[in-house]
């Protein structure tokens, strides 16, 4: 069995929304597009996005950190959305475990979205069908693209290299290695859906700050500031006296 999925490193994610933006761009322009919007260029734009990033504050000052959580369909192994679909429009592919919606069969009853514990399905009001992340099925097997670009658009876009894509059932894949090395976990495992996407937790980072090194940097800045101030001929007291 093969199960393609995404692995997202919450430690590296900087919350820039590049994955979400590139996902929207690819999927709205691709073969299965568009992903419709209301008011796209006006106040309060709304529309279908397959990937959204939420930001949380975790902990209390001073033990506090900011966590960005990019969330798209988890391609669950036990996908509850597929079980409830009355038409069979929602299905899970046997060959790679990707969960897809056949827009030609979907009647837009929204029942699948109620059954998804992660809120990863989005209704397209204009086309009247349910949509969701396709794991970029139109990229990963797309022979018209150069080999190195046959990856999900969100993975390619990520400037922090926080996203990996691969077969989580194959221990040698990059995704599996990330999970194994970074202690990958699943969101809300008690949902029973057995999500395939994994997240790598924030890690504790201890940076040793050396007083000497810190002062050196500080002095360098102060000298630079003094030079600029001298050039303009106005040396103020506090700059002149470190």
């Amino acid at each position, binding site marked *: 069995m093969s199960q393609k999925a995404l692995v997202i490193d919450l430690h590296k994610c900087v919350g820039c929304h590049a994955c979400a933006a590139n996902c929207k761009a690819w999927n709205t322009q691709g073969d299965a597009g568009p992903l419709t919007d209301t008011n796209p260029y006006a106040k309060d734009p*709304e529309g279908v996005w397959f990937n959204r990033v939420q930001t949380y504050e975790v902990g209390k000052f001073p033990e506090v950190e*900011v966590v960005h*959580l990019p969330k798209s369909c988890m391609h669950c192994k036990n996908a509850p959305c597929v079980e409830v679909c009355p038409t069979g429009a929602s299905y899970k592919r046997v060959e790679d475990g990707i969960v897809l919606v056949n827009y030609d069969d979907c*009647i837009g009853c*929204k029942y699948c*979205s109620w059954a998804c514990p992660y809120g990863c399905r989005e209704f397209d009001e204009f086309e009247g069908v349910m949509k969701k992340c396709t794991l970029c099925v139109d990229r990963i097997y797309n022979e018209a693209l150069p080999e190195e670009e046959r990856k999900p658009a969100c993975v390619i876009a990520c400037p922090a290299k926080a996203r990996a894509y691969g077969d989580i059932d194959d221990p040698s894949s990059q995704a599996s290695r990330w999970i194994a090395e970074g202690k990958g976990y699943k*969101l*809300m495992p008690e949902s029973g859906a057995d999500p395939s996407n994994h*997240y790598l937790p924030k890690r504790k980072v201890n940076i040793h700050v050396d007083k000497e090194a810190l002062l050196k940097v500080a002095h360098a800045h102060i000298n630079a500031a003094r030079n600029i101030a001298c050039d303009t001929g106005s040396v103020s007291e506090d700059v002149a006296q470190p």
Partner: protein
Amino acid sequence: MYPEMSLVFLTVLAGAGQGMFILLVILDALFLKSGEVTPHFLMAAGIASLIFPLAGMAASFFHLGNPQRGWKAIFKWKQSWLSREVIFLPAFVGFQFLYLLLLYSGAPELYRLFAGFLGIVTAMGLYLSSAMLYAAIRFIKEWATALTPINFVLFGLTSGAAATAAAAHYTMPGMTIGYLLSYLVAFLAAFSLVMKGLAFQFNATVYSGISIKNALGMNNPHIRLMDTGTAYPHFNTKEYFFPLTRRQNGIQQTLVLGISFFLPLLMALYAAWNPALKLGGLFSTAAFLIVTGLILERRLFFIQGNHVQNLYYGNYRQNAVKNPATSKAKQGTPRPK
């Protein structure tokens, strides 16, 4: 959950029609021979019971994004309650129609009652599948309870009984059946009152055992949503959440219990104590009140449904009393190292 009015109308109206039809077939089997119910009554009540699910069916189409291919929903009857509902609804209407046709044409009793029996079976199937459709969503604890199917059947029978009583009083004034139906309506209304009270109580205390900690997979008692992401509000914040303050909740619960069950209960008791009166008007009013109250009830059923995905958007209504993770006592205790 967002209260989808087309589904509210579908379940309430079809439910009333199912209740009415079940009752009148039973009355037909028991009392037509002895002349205690008239064919005229059966016909009138039968036609009324047909109009309800037809109206519900019409409403349901407004729910679909692509109603023109709604028929495709019959494919997955083996796995989806929605698919079963889509099959049972027209089947029920079909048997209702057949029953009325056989009644009208004076066909042998056996055929008519058999069609009626199949109508009852499909009506029960429809009750069960429409209720299980909600009860099967395990991520909405307010729905995933045995109270959901019990109440769908019970409330449908209550509204159906009131409408049947109205038809009996109009078409057979002064006959014993109308009098007996007063008792039935009173009993069902009282039963419904208790069961809906229980459901409200359940919803006020149910704790799903899940919190933002599970949603994010982070064991920290202080997690606060800072940003909801692109283009807010969107499907996830609108479909799964509908604002409801504690006060609004209280008012709506009182209205539901009062309009759908308490007032009709008083009316039915009044009728039971005054058998000599002509009470068609009273029972039509009672039926109207029940159906109106049930529309409010079903709408509130949606709104009270609290989907776990709301956790990600800070929209999850925690029942603080029952929630060990957020209760004061728990927060005060030191965390294990």
